[in-house]
């Protein structure tokens, strides 16, 4: 299997950027990723992502489909263990790491906005 020979290769192994424009709704992506970023930050990341994705688009130069799906290099599909009880982490020790906890629970603000 060979990368598409029509694309040029840059000195460092990259193909020259594809001519296709890559659309990025950066505010939407940041919302999906739960990142509260300022407009300036969003603009900066959008430019950088565009550059990186221009190069990453080289993956589209691969012709045809490989005969195997990418998988564990040793061919594992699944792993099973005996269904036995074993000790878990100590609750108090775990909760001691939480920013806020009460009566054995993690404390969070309301999950829904109040009207």
């Amino acid at each position, binding site marked *: 299997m060979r990368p598409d020979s029509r694309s040029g290769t840059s000195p460092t192994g990259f193909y020259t950027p594809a001519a296709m424009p890559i659309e990025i709704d950066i505010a939407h992506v940041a919302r999906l990723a739960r*990142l509260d970023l300022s407009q300036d930050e969003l603009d900066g990341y959008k430019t950088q992502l565009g550059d990186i994705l221009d190069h990453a688009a080289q993956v589209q130069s691969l012709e045809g489909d490989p005969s195997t799906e990418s998988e564990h290099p040793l061919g*594992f599909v699944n792993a099973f263990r005996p269904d036995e009880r074993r000790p878990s982490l100590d609750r108090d020790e775990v909760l001691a790491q939480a920013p806020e906890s009460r009566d054995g629970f993690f404390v969070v603000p309301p999950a829904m906005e109040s009207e």
Partner: protein
Amino acid sequence: MNLHELTITEAGARLRSGETTSAELLESTLDRASRTEAQLHAFLNIDRDGASESAAKADADLAEGIDRGPLHGIPLALKDNMCTRGLETTAGSQILAGYVPPYDATVVTRLKEVGAVLLGKTNLDEFAMGSSTENSAYGPSFNPWDIGRVPGGSSGGSAAAVAGGSAFGALGSDTGGSIRQPASLTGIVGMKPTYGTVSRYGLIAFASSLDQIGPLSKNVEDAATILRAIWGHDPLDSTSYSGEYPDVSADLGRDVRGLKVGVVKELAGEGYEPAVEQAVARMVEQLAGEGAEIVELSLPTFDIAMSAYYLIAPAEASANLARFDGIRYGHRVQGATTEALMANTRAEGFGPEVIRRILLGTYALSAGYYDAFYGQAQKVRAAVQEDLASAYESVDVLVSPTSPTVAFSAGERIDDPLAMYLSDICTIPMNLSGDPAISIPIGVDPQSLPIGFQVMAPALGEQVMFRVAAQVEQLAAFTARPVLEEVVQ
């Protein structure tokens, strides 16, 4: 020779002959650290008390004839993305500042079982994302060979500690080259084992299908010693290999006569420093002189492996790092709702490279772009595996430079993510394939900066990989050491 300059094998021999004690070995590394940390910043946290206790225990055990093997009483360092019970573990991120894990990673448990003395936690690029250790939220590490240069990354703290003499060996993690590239840039040995052979339980996940823990050491034999202690099946890691493991020490002294060594054509050319290419070519000639058969091979998919990596790794990272939300552990920034709390916490707690990769991965996985980016990257990954499978029909191992350049200057690539990503162009294919690879120092460039040589082998091919690596080490006769001015803090 100062104690801190010994290899693990040499230190172990002196321990058993009674010439030295584990407490003295520990003191030599702590003393060295106190004189070099101001320049190197290899460690985030030195566990003086815990290490002293383990060293005293090792000395008492050995005096009673209880010998737990070659790492018993040897001071080693851990990259700070491996969980240590009762000892702060930050992954180089503000979001985990102050986090004290309630459990040990499996590799930590295993090192404790064989009596190793755990010195503390080494610096890294935040969540192991980077190639220079400059992305650490706690400040960069520097290269013992030239403190104006980076030690590589992301296991740059582990590399600087071993190369600088403040640890006899260390563990790192390698997702795209994060053990091998810093080893190359600091003139030491670094090895990424076959995926699935070293448990990832307790390793703070970056990209789970690529992450693998491995050793950084002063020589090839020490790397094999550390690997033997940490690998093996672990029911706590569902990707752990449960079959038979190779004997990594069996062929350490065996010559390369009759072995077929493949030289990867794609890992050379423009972008590679002449001194690096010349040193690698010279080593290939030396291997031929020792009776290895040299085969030049083309692996065309290596040209697009990096593109696939920079979609797959961020995609997995965007999912793995969703757990850092200010609720169960780590840093929290308040918000009116749970969602606002999460978004505020994450924006403040993560550094720019981590945010960049989370955004990139989220985009690559999002509706409308999945097939073109993530799906296609997975096809490239499978194609890389197929390319390698056909290469290994005709050769026993593959070789290349470990890094296209020697250590670069601090600050040189930090504002150019793509230039930084290119640091890993030689190492990434082995993470996509899951195969083992090792970097061995073979010389220095005209500025006296070390050059690394990479030996790659098929999955579970560690025996032949170590055989070739040991011969490379012997042929290179690399004895140069960094001249690091000590500064008492």
